[in-house]
């Protein structure tokens, strides 16, 4: 398991795409936002939590199709499936690797980018916390979507269509935590809901992803 | 005959129009698709019977089984 995790991480770093691409995309989205809505700082600080969440979500989506695609093409996925490691475990590891290379850097970068959007000071902590709690769910849901579409050629667009509706609850609660945090309101309820969704996704979705993988490898 | 819809006539009529148009679309599309596949299947089975003679009969249960098993 750890070997697989280490291998995935090494591949992601060596390809240079993992950290770099998603972060650059995130930066661009945040940079383009003021061009679209105007440089008014009051407006920006109002929409900052939502934009940051949306940007992180899209950046996360961007790298999903690489979770299984390369292993599928060169046949490594068949080897993983026949190895003693249960496929559920492999799916969970893949999701973890995706989170470490995408979700974690995005979480760390978000407060920095928050400065650009004039995020109110109390929001920084809650934004980082909500992303830290929410991005694992995004990675696991995305792993499930990638497992469904791994056999489809050029399945990236299809996967977005499938995965984005599944992101709705996570996005709602995550952005709500960040927004309420920025406005210094009570955040306990959405925070608990976000944590619950994240934990449930991490616990259950690897099974669904493994089921989809088995069908695709048949 | 036409009821007096008052100032909301436009909304009510367009709601009925849109809904009936959508229902008609899905119905007509389904019927057209159904006709097309039925004709294709009939043509294919007719071709098999005339073209291949006794092998068609022995093959038919197998193909259905294949269809059932995927």
């Amino acid at each position, binding site marked *: 398991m750890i070997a697989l995790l280490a291998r995935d991480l090494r591949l992601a770093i060596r390809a240079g795409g993992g950290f770099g691409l998603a972060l650059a995309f995130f930066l661009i989205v945040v940079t383009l936002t003021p061009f679209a809505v105007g440089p008014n700082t009051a407006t920006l600080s109002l929409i900052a939590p939502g934009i940051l969440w949306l940007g992180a979500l899209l950046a996360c989506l961007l790298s999903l199709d690489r979770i299984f695609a390369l292993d599928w093409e060169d046949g490594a996925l068949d080897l993983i499936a026949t190895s003693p490691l249960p496929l559920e475990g492999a799916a969970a590891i893949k999701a973890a690797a995706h989170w470490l290379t995408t979700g974690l850097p995005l979480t760390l970068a978000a407060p920095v980018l928050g400065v650009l959007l004039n995020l109110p000071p109390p929001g920084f902590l809650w934004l980082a916390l909500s992303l830290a709690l929410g991005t694992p769910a995004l990675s696991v849901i995305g792993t499930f979507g990638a497992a469904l579409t791994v056999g489809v050629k050029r399945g990236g667009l299809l996967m977005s269509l*499938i995965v984005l509706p599944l992101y709705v609850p996570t996005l709602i609660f995550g952005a709500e935590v960040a927004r309420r945090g920025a406005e210094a309101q009570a955040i306990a309820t959405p925070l608990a809901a976000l944590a619950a969704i994240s934990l449930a996704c991490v616990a259950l979705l690897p099974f*669904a992803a493994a089921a989809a993988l088995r069908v695709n490898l048949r | 005959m036409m009821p007096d819809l008052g*100032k*909301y006539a436009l909304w009510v009529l367009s709601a009925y129009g849109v809904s009936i148009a959508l229902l008609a679309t899905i119905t007509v599309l389904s019927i057209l698709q159904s006709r097309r*596949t039925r004709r294709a299947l009939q043509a294919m089975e007719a071709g098999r019977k005339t073209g291949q003679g006794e092998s068609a009969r022995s093959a038919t249960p197998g193909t259905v089984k294949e269809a059932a098993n995927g």
Partner: protein
Amino acid sequence: MSLWEYANPTRFMRVTGAALPWLWALTALCLAVGLTWGFFFTPDDFRQGSTVKIIYLHVPSALMGINAWLMMLVTSLIWLIRRHHVSALAAKAAAPVGATFTLIALATGALWGQPMWGTWWEWDPRLTSFLVLFLFYLGYMALWAAIEDPDTAADLTSVLCLVGSVFAILSRYALVFWNQGLHQGASLSLDAEENVHDVFWYPLLVCIAGFVLLFVALVFLRTRTEIRARRIKALETRARMSAA
């Protein structure tokens, strides 16, 4: 082993073939009676004016938009557990029909909302969850269309339907919470079962029956199409194999 499986599509074809003309007749009757009754022979609501007539379309289609997904969930489960092919094909056949109903519910909702709420689109949790449901239908249909092997497609869409159902329910609760967060207790939505008077209720019931029948008829028809298409594919494969 195959007798049971062989008999089932055939029996399905026979039964639905016999039932379809009656179903169509009943559907047409119910829809004609219900919509005519609702449109021509019901009074205006004192508050909503003539827009109350939109509920004869809105409520049944919304109901069927959800029920179609529930039916797909059940048939997907049957497919995953029993490997019953007609079941998987019925789920595939139901998806576009359900999406159409959902779209009608959204369109009529917007057309009702414009004069009543003064806006085409309110991010009301009910409306929004229908939009999300529509997106789920789109993803589901796209997955069916993208995968070539029919059994793989049936398996994967079934899994997606199961996971999607859970997330659809989650989204529903998240949206209720989210909208409360924005503006407190905006209970503008039309609660048909609770405050609708008998005068509106009976034609509504007929319309609901008509929509249910229409759904069943369409699903039967489309499932028959799918079974025939599958048969064609099998025959083609066989022809190719014997030629090779």
